[in-house]
């Protein structure tokens, strides 16, 4: 799909959204309140304990903000198409996406692009800037580029996680519980993973590589560890995204073989 066609889809979606302006604005307010509560919990905790595993409030705010920001970017692309997939399959509407001369994956992504994450982006960027101003980070050219790429890689990891939920419904029809599970899990990285037991740390690094979204980049940027391997963090996202897209396409072949 060309970029031009993708933007044409965005234009159409924006116009649909504007048909229900009040709903759109109320949704934004709701999200800002919801995420403000997320920050508030951690702030209250730190008000009492001052440090979590050696991480102070501005550092924690950095961790949470990177999680929310990358989630917002990733989910803008993949949340709606992947979580709608279950219903599309059950109602047979997925067929519509298989009769066009474009790739069904990009077609779904383009037609379900979600503008609703603007609120997430707003609140996370504000908190991110605030936290960076209160942190003593040396911002050279390299650090800036590294940070940009980790944000990109993190967004890809977040997008990929949602693609796996969509793939699940292609193989097994139902994915509701996977979605629920994912939303229970995705906030564990609001805390440094060193706070968890070894098993959970291994899971978050090697099985569900969520720690690469914010924890490892933070270790490097906030000078908390001096491991040269941390420089490789930005390649994890693209690799994971490619893997999940591959799994999704295997799933669509399975769907075409089995039928609905």
């Amino acid at each position, binding site marked *: 799909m060309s970029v*031009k*066609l993708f933007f*044409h*889809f965005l234009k*159409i979606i924006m*116009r*649909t959204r504007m*048909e*229900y302006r009040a709903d759109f604005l109320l949704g934004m307010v709701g999200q800002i309140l919801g995420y403000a509560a997320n920050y508030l919990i951690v702030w209250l905790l730190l008000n009492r304990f001052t440090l979590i595993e050696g991480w102070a409030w501005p550092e924690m705010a950095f961790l949470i903000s990177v999680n929310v920001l990358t989630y917002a970017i990733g989910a803008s692309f993949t949340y709606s198409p992947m979580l709608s997939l279950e219903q599309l399959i059950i*109602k*047979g*509407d997925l*067929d*519509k996406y*298989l*009769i*066009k*001369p*474009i*790739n069904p994956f990009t077609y779904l992504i383009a037609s379900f692009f979600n503008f609703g994450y603007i609120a997430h982006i707003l609140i996370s960027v504000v908190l991110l800037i605030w936290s960076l101003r209160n942190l003593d980070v040396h911002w050279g050219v390299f650090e800036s580029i590294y940070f940009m790429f980790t944000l990109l890689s993190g967004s890809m990891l977040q997008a990929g996680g949602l693609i796996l939920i969509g793939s699940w419904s292609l193989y097994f029809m139902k994915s509701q519980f996977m979605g629920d599970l994912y939303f229970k899990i995705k906030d564990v990285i609001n805390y440094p993973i060193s706070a968890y037991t070894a098993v959970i740390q291994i899971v978050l690094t090697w099985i569900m590589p969520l720690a690469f979204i914010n924890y490892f980049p933070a270790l490097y940027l906030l000078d908390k560890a001096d491991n040269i391997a941390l420089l490789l963090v930005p390649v994890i996202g693209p690799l994971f995204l490619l893997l999940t897209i591959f799994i999704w396409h295997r799933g669509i*072949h399975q769907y*075409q*073989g*089995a*039928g609905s």
Partner: protein
Amino acid sequence: MAIIQINQLVKEYRTNKRFTGPFGLIKSLLSTEYVNTRAVDGISFSIDSGESVGYLGPNGAGKSTMIKMLTGILVPTAGDIQVDGKIPYRHRKEIARKIGVVFGQRSQLWWDLPVVDSFELHKHIYNISDSDYNSRVQQYIELLDMGSFVNKPVRQLSLGQRMRAEIALALLHNPEILFLDEPTIGLDVIAKHNIRTFLRQVNQETNVAIMLTTHDLKDIEEICDRIIIVNHGKSVFDGDVHHLKREIGGINKQVTIEFHIDPGEIAFPNALLIRDEGVRKKYEFIHHEGEENSLMRSIMSIPNVDQIKDISIEDMSIEEIIHKAFVNLNQNSKIRV
């Protein structure tokens, strides 16, 4: 030239076996046994470019499955399938440019936006040139009488208007074949008539091949030259519509006459009495070529005509037609399976 060619095509669905009985639920949950159902069971036919073919059968006969295999949505279990010389599921994107698909039960239009916005997006997806796009949109707005609603949001359209827009959308990229899955389902008589007239016209004027599934024989009579009847995944009849009528002795009509008072026995020379409940009698009028109005003449000629309270005339149902096709064609040993 054949544009669709299928040979001994089979599609099997595999479903988990379900058990009944006291522990049926647990057994169903744990069992790894499967049941294979054949939705399409060894069907062969070929369709030439510009042909119009009706694919008729009762619910569950495998009509939609056939459309899904021809459009590349589903992969067949066995057999050969070619659309425009290519295997649809392998060359899905190339085939997509050559075909238009209309699903009667699901919309491909953007629900909240004016119809033209969906057309506009379609133009970009298929890379249609400005001049082609403008002339075709103009042509279809006129042909389908869509002028009054192309700028209205789809959600405000009646079902008949929406179906017209769906068909125009499927034709915008000038496909060689138009597939329609139950295009007249849920429409009222006038809307049905409009859609049928239009499809016939498009088929004749633009030479686009039409293949439509339906369980309404009228659709096929008015749109198609050729009819394929399927039942339980097998082809029961394949030939032209007039041929079918000759084979099964025409489409009989069932007539129920209700009288104010019981007139006693009434017999018609061209009808069989199916049920006699005194005041309500049900006949099957046998169709004869060239005597289409003999039914009304017969009814009007009975002595108790002024005692008639109500008359209802029904076409034979699709199941009865299939049954008749089976019996008659078996006798003539012309059945093609």
